[in-house]
């Protein structure tokens, strides 16, 4: 009988499969240490990940305390190091009383940490985040981390899940504030995307105001497709809360919300609030979606908006 433990002197150098690794060990674990797959032809039980992930535990006292400590120490430290944020417009929230939806443009994963550390109390201490169910709640580990540390609840991006909407509305009615990105996902190229009506729908259902927020600079910190952040300067500009008026519908309110964020973007970019308001009233705000055209032209146009940096020295090759 062949000795199975005997190694071929050549194959252990060439055969990668024979190399021990954690993932290989994990893969080798079988039932009952690992859940069994549903046999073909059988209907799987409803998943408890994705939109069905239950997050109530993340709003209990111990979890809230953990989150608060983590955000005010590690979270604040990380965001100060990478984003050195400038926070504007907090005075516009002076009269805001009770829960609200904070609706921001979305450029980066850094946005959520930036929002949760930039929002003023009491809203920051009782906030939850609408996070993509398919991305953040895809498995139980990322779901638990998202729920615990950023207070996320799953929001379906591609389908309507009544449970997640009801959960968000219940929380808003129960005094929790929500951070949501009406664009539905991170910017692929640094420009904004058209707002979807989710924030408007929730505002109407829950009867809470929506605070438009513009975030600038996080695309450079951790843009889509990058795994490690780099340092840059970010600005968070809070706008005046918008109430869902009787004459509004979801579409009209969403347009109003997007216009408010665009006006804030204009204000942040130019530093001239009055000029930004003039352009907003005459519907000439530059917008956050950028020009139409090839990707390189959009990127080119975006470079005009970047903060110019210069070390004062010309470097070879001189051009």
């Amino acid at each position, binding site marked *: 009988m062949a000795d199975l433990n005997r190694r071929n002197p050549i194959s252990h150098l060439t055969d990668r499969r024979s190399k021990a690794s954690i993932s290989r060990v994990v893969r080798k674990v079988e039932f009952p240490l690992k859940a069994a797959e549903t046999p073909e032809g059988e209907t799987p039980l409803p998943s408890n990940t994705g939109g069905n992930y239950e997050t109530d535990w993340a709003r209990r006292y111990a979890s809230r305390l953990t989150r608060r400590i983590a955000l005010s120490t590690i979270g604040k430290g990380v965001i100060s190091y990478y984003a050195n944020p400038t926070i*504007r417009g907090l005075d516009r929230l002076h*009269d805001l009383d009770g829960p609200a939806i904070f609706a921001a443009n979305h450029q980066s994963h850094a946005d959520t940490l930036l929002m949760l550390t930039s929002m003023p109390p009491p809203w920051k201490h009782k906030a939850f985040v609408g996070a993509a169910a398919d991305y953040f709640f895809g498995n139980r580990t990322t779901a638990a981390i998202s729920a615990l540390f950023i207070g996320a609840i799953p929001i379906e991006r591609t389908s309507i899940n009544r449970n997640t909407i009801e959960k968000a509305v219940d929380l808003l009615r129960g005094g929790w504030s929500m951070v949501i990105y009406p664009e539905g996902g991170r910017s692929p190229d640094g420009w904004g995307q058209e707002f979807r009506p989710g924030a408007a729908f929730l505002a109407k259902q829950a009867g809470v105001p929506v605070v438009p927020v513009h975030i600038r600079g996080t695309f450079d910190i951790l843009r889509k497709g990058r795994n490690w952040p780099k340092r840059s300067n970010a600005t968070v500009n809070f706008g005046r809360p918008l109430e869902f008026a009787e004459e509004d519908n979801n579409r009209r309110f969403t347009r109003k919300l997007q216009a408010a964020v665009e006006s804030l973007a204009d204000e942040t970019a130019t530093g001239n609030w009055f000029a930004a308001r003039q352009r907003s009233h005459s519907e000439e705000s530059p917008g956050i979606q950028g020009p139409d055209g090839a990707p390189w032209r959009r990127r080119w146009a975006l470079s005009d908006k970047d903060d110019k940096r210069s070390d004062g020295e010309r470097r070879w090759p001189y051009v």
Partner: protein
Amino acid sequence: MSARQGLVLEVDRTTPPIVFHHGEGFRFEKLPSGSRVVYPNEPIEPIEDVDGAIRHALDNPLGDSPPLAALLTAGMKLTIAFDDISLPLPQMQAPDIRGRIIEQVLDTAASAGVDDVHLIAALALHRRMTEGELRHALGDRVYDAFAPTGQLYNFDAEDPDALTHLGETDHGEEVVISKRAAESDLIIYVNINLVSMDGGHKSVATGLSGYSAIRHHHNVETMRRSKSFMDQEKSELHTKNWRQGRLIRNAGVKIFQIETTLNNNTFPAPWDFLQKREWEMSAKERMLLLGTKKFLDKVPRKSARSIFQGIRAPFGLTSIQAGEVEEVHKVTTANVYRQHLVRVEGQTDILSMGLPYLGPYNVNSIMNPILVACLGLGYFFNLYKGKPLVREGGVVIMSHPTPWEFHPVHHPSYIDFFEEVLADTTDPEKIEHKYEKRYAEDEWYRHLYRTSYAYHGVHPFYMWYWCSHALQHVGQVIIVGGDQRATKRMGFRSATTMRDALEMATDVVGRDPTLTHLHNPPVLMADVV
């Protein structure tokens, strides 16, 4: 629970020592039985929806003025003037009401397509506001939008090219205002009416004016004939300002006046024990008061000053009205009285007052002896309606350390006034005739006023004139705890303790005088019947 009215407490054996403000500190004074203590009204409920109230005022103006939106058109020349650092006291917690109003005004102007907008701090002969102070008053957004382009600035009453002479009233009072304002299609004035003297025609006629016009009412005669200058119906200062204001209106200058009133919620936590009645302080508040007093007694005055100057009042808006100046001011005054008036029966032989660390002219600065006198004998003494709280020939006892100390940047002419003028005479009339013109036209003071952060050369004179009604009315002024030399220089007497001061007062008012203490701030105005 609605706010309680102020009260007049009759002191008896059970009355606790009364907390006296004493500059950057406090004193506890046991007053004789039978004395009275006048407590202010509690802060009245503020308006909850401030932005809504501002919008309502702009859309529903008083008098014959159209709504603001109808007054703003593309291509027009718009000037927005606002009250300077002397209001409110202390500075209010951000966001300041001026900034909130001006944002809405500018937003309306932006929607109308108005491009030519100037914002002017209407400081008359006060010191210029620093960038930080302007940012606090107007907010960063307004500051960043207008200051870099030179469209937001401090008024300069000594710039000959920036003033316009509009004429003279039928009483010969010159009327001079900012050229930019006079040539604008519309002036919008944003006011904070802390006391009943503020606002109305005074806003533009004085705030945007210069020495040549202001001297007609900032003088001894006017002050002595204003009984008091806080009571519009009996104020010569008010009458003269109104004459000038009406001339401005008749000259075709269009003004949209926005006036606000605040409640007297003056001290934020942990200082809020300062607006409690002594017997209503909790054990924690009493400990805090005692600890704070001990601490303030120990720390250097400079440190105590910076602690106090850092206080930002949690004032609440109690009314806002806009439109035609006189109609607006009637409503404003009624709202000021609603908060401040406390009915007091009869006058007193001795009036005592604890003077706090702050007056209108030492925000972020030092309260020098002249400002101490002005706060006590100018402002507090004049906070009456009807007749003065103290009888003619009575005694005023003020409590303040009154240090011989001046802010060299803010108050340069005060130093010379104190050293030169008061060393010669304390008689306001003699001072006015002998010295005023020289100080008012001094080139160095003029230079410092225009380019640094100095009050105008003539300003200490006005502070002294502010006291002239009181100086004429009372028989003696005693400062408890006051620096002896500084007190003597002003012609007053200093006492180490309240007991000593009362003993000294008996020389003037007899052995068995009545005493009334004004428990102010928070601000109160005595309605003496």
